[in-house]
């Protein structure tokens, strides 16, 4: 399958879709919805084709395309995927149709809404496939624009503030990251992630930067640390890592639920992807220097977000904080992997496990969180926007199917063995515990609290006395049931047979863990 520009085509499909959707904007809302959904399904089919043609055992990137682009900056249009990229593509391709199906309530400017969603998907594809900083950064930044307007125009009552906060926070992170990459470029004359990673692993990157830039007021170590901090901030805001998370609850709560699904399911992975693709290969030494504070950040992210989620009364806000919590596990594992550089076989196997766990967790969280927000969208549609934890009760009597299916998703989020959430978290804890014992031990608290508040949701929403107002709440329609089947099925499949994903990403995970050997 080499030669054909599969990845460029994949990125172009949603863009073409956005144009078509805008063009048929005058048609009925149903036509617009179906067209948009159709394009996102084409993208999904293309991604599955890529998955089918992918060689899991091959080294390096596949489906590569490389064209000279801006000669003055020595920048190329370079795209390609490894196991991680492929997994993220698949996740984006799955989450986008879910987001669209959950956007039934959108009634105003429907064609613009779906065009922006498709545009956001194109930016996700672009980010997850780019191997050169410039166009990676373009997609990264451009993703903000549709997200901003989706939150601003179709969001809840405080959407103006939410959209602004979201934009300003991520923008600040982007700017510091841009500055750091400028410094790297000035020293290395390269924007290519592969080149920069190779330089870093041979230990030449930082000496080169210090020699070329040599800011006299800073020692070489500090120069390297400043550059690392710039990039770190960009990703930490996006994931988010506590204390850079304050934009998230408001944004997730105020955004229309379909958009929240995209934000949490796919966009939050952009930050983690940056951690894996850029920080780990290029800044491993710097991460080791400040590993203890970084681990504290990871523990804080896991534990504090779980406690905060427990204290919420708005279901959307609860899941927003729980999202931070779940991604915190990935952060913890990434830091754990960065700790040791030896070639000791025992350490290596733990690092592989943690790395595999990160990949699985990223995919599973995307799937589970998107599904949970989807259930909230369906609930909101029936209740007329009410989604408080204490507003419901006894719903299982009027909506048994809804209760059952959402229960599965909730248990998956909680990490019940047999469902997809379990295996990723298990691998992360198994791998991280020997590497960073105290931090992992503290993080277990997060698991416990998550279990508590998720059981609390089950209890307060689905059990107990049924309030009079909700006595006529309709259960899921046939269409909804049918569209939920593949997602819930995937949760079981991945829970029982994680090898489906692991088989594809395992080799990439090993390579990533191995590159850290050669500092």
């Amino acid at each position: 399958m080499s030669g054909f520009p599969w990845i460029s085509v994949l990125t172009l499909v949603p863009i073409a879709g956005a144009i078509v959707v805008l063009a048929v904007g005058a048609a009925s809302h149903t036509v617009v919805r179906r067209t948009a959904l159709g394009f996102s399904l084409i993208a999904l089919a293309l991604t599955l084709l890529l998955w089918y043609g992918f060689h899991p055992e091959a080294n390096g990137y596949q489906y590569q395309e490389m064209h000279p682009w801006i000669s003055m900056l020595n920048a190329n249009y370079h795209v390609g995927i490894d196991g991680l990229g492929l997994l993220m593509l698949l996740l984006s391709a799955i989450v986008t149709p879910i987001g669209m199906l959950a956007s039934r309530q959108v009634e105003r400017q429907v064609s613009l809404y779906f065009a922006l969603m498709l545009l956001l998907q194109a930016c996700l594809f672009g980010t997850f496939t780019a191997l050169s900083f410039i166009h990676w950064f373009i997609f990264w930044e451009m993703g903000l624009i549709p997200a901003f307007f989706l939150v601003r125009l179709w969001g809840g009552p405080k959407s103006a503030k939410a959209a602004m906060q979201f934009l300003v926070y991520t923008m600040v992170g982007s700017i510091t990251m841009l500055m750091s990459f400028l410094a790297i470029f000035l020293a290395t004359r390269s924007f290519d992630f592969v080149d920069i990673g190779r330089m870093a692993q041979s230990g030449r990157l930082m000496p080169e930067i210090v020699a070329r830039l040599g800011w006299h007021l800073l020692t070489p170590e500090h120069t390297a640390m400043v550059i690392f901090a710039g990039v770190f901030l960009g990703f930490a805001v996006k994931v988010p890592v506590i204390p850079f998370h304050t934009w998230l609850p408001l944004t997730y709560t105020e955004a229309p639920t379909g958009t929240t699904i995209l934000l949490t399911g796919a966009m939050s992975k952009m930050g983690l992807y940056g951690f894996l693709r850029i920080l780990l290969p290029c800044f491993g030494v710097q991460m080791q220097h400040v590993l203890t504070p970084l681990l504290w950040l990871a523990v804080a992210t896991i534990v504090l977000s779980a406690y905060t989620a427990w204290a919420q009364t708005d279901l959307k806000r609860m899941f927003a904080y729980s999202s931070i919590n779940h991604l915190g596990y990935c952060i913890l594992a990434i830091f754990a992997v960065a700790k040791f550089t030896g070639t000791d076989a025992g350490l290596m196997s733990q690092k592989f496990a943690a790395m595999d766990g990160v990949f699985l967790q990223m995919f599973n969280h995307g799937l589970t969180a998107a599904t949970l927000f989807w259930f909230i969208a369906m609930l909101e549609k029936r209740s007329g926007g009410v989604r408080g934890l204490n507003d419901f009760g006894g719903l299982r009597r009027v909506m048994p199917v809804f209760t059952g299916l959402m229960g599965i998703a909730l248990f998956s989020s909680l990490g019940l063995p047999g469902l997809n959430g379990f295996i990723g978290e298990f691998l992360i804890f198994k791998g991280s515990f020997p590497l960073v014992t105290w931090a992992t031990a503290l993080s277990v608290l997060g698991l416990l609290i998550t279990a508590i508040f998720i059981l609390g949701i089950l209890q307060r929403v689905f059990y107990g006395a049924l309030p009079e107002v909700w006595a006529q709440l309709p259960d899921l329609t046939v269409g909804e049931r049918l569209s939920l089947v593949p997602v819930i099925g995937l949760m079981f499949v991945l829970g029982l047979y994680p090898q489906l994903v692991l088989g594809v990403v395992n080799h990439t995970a090993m390579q990533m863990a191995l590159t850290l050997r050669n500092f």
Partner: protein
Amino acid sequence: MDVMGYGQLLERAWPEIIVVLTAFVVVACDLVAFRRATAGARFGAAVAIGAAGCVGAVWKLMASAPVMNQTSMMVDTPLTRLVQAGLLVLTIVVLLLSVGAQFTEHVGEFVLLVLLGTAGMLFLVAAQDLLAIFISLELLSLSLYILTGFDKASPRSAEASLKYFLFGGMSAAFLLFGFSLLYGFSHSTTLSGIAMAVHEQPHNPILMVAMVMAVVGFGFKIAAAPFHFWAPDVYQGAPVQSAAFIASGSKVASFFIFFQVMVLGFAGAEGSASLTRMTSGWVPILVLVSCASMLLGNLAAIAQMSLRRLMAYSAVAHAGYMLLGYVAHTERSLAALLYYVVTYSLATLGVFGVLAVTEKANGDDSISGLSGLSRRAPFLSFCLAIFLLSLAGIPPLSGFFAKFLLFTSVLAAAPGSMLLLWLVVLAIGMSAVSLFYYLRVLKRVYVADVEAQAAPLRAPVFGQVVIGFLAASVALLGCAPDLLLNALVGVVRASGL
């Protein structure tokens, strides 16, 4: 020194001659053939002839190889040719945007003045001699003063024109005084002759005075703070087309010649603005002017209620960014500067093009008047969004690459310089501020509630085509910067600094 005969000079000045002749043809046709025609038809004919003349001049520029003579009064290098061609293209766009304008009866004279100003810009770009520079600059400026006051029915236009003229006269006096000091100092009027004298005694006090005077004079032309006071009034008072001309072509030419004078003429007197070892020269002066422009332009733009004034202050801010290219003064930074100023001009022309339509409908240029434009004129709103986001430097539009290339070239010019680093940090921070006020306009356009009675905006199809072309070029140059950049890098390298 190689003395140029009149024959040679005429030979070399063919593009300029074509433009001037076209200008007279336009007036003659307008006065003779179209006296009784409607204003629309007269504008159409005049613009067609004027644009044809500009196309002819571009063709003439492209047809022959440059002479590459560096020592005469006028030079002819691939670099000057490319800049001249760019200026002619910008003029053509200004002319096309004027079709259908209603602010004047004197169609022929309007086009004449635009073309004469263009001739002045073409001479200015090629000039390497103080006298030639001054005369071309005056030819350009006088055309602009009159163009500013061209709307005779509007007192504001007259006021702006007078202000522009008085400030301009003052700054021309400064410039001339500086030039006379330079002549006394170096006994030469050519930039290369001055450079030789500067090389011998780079710290002469007279030289310093002359340098400051030159910065004042040119700083006025490029609207850098604190010489920017004319800009808001002129941008607001002048007819839209004149304002577009002032904001685009005349900026490109002025930035180019300013760079030439500083880097070629004052070569050797750069000085250093390093925080620890500061020495006198033009770099520290420009650092101050640049910082002042970035800060004042961006902060003042926040408070504006009128889109035109906002554009004026944003022009001040952009002048501040572009001056960073002077501070670096390398070949790369010149190429980046030219890319910046060209893409900036395209976006600015686009904004004024949209303004021409909305002002006709709304009667004023207030930002609040743009409320709900997205529903009244979706296409124009989309183009306006592209222009403003490009000015703010959002990827993948050309404004992002312009800033990116400029800042990289600045940082690459003197590795390890804390000063340049801080300047770039300030510039990036200020770009973030600029995003705020550009988005404020777009928020009006897209988010604000529209009144019930708002009817769809009637926009001429031709104007929409021109605006769409501008938006497409802003986006295209962003996605494929190499289209323009390779040419710029090539000619800068071929012409040398």
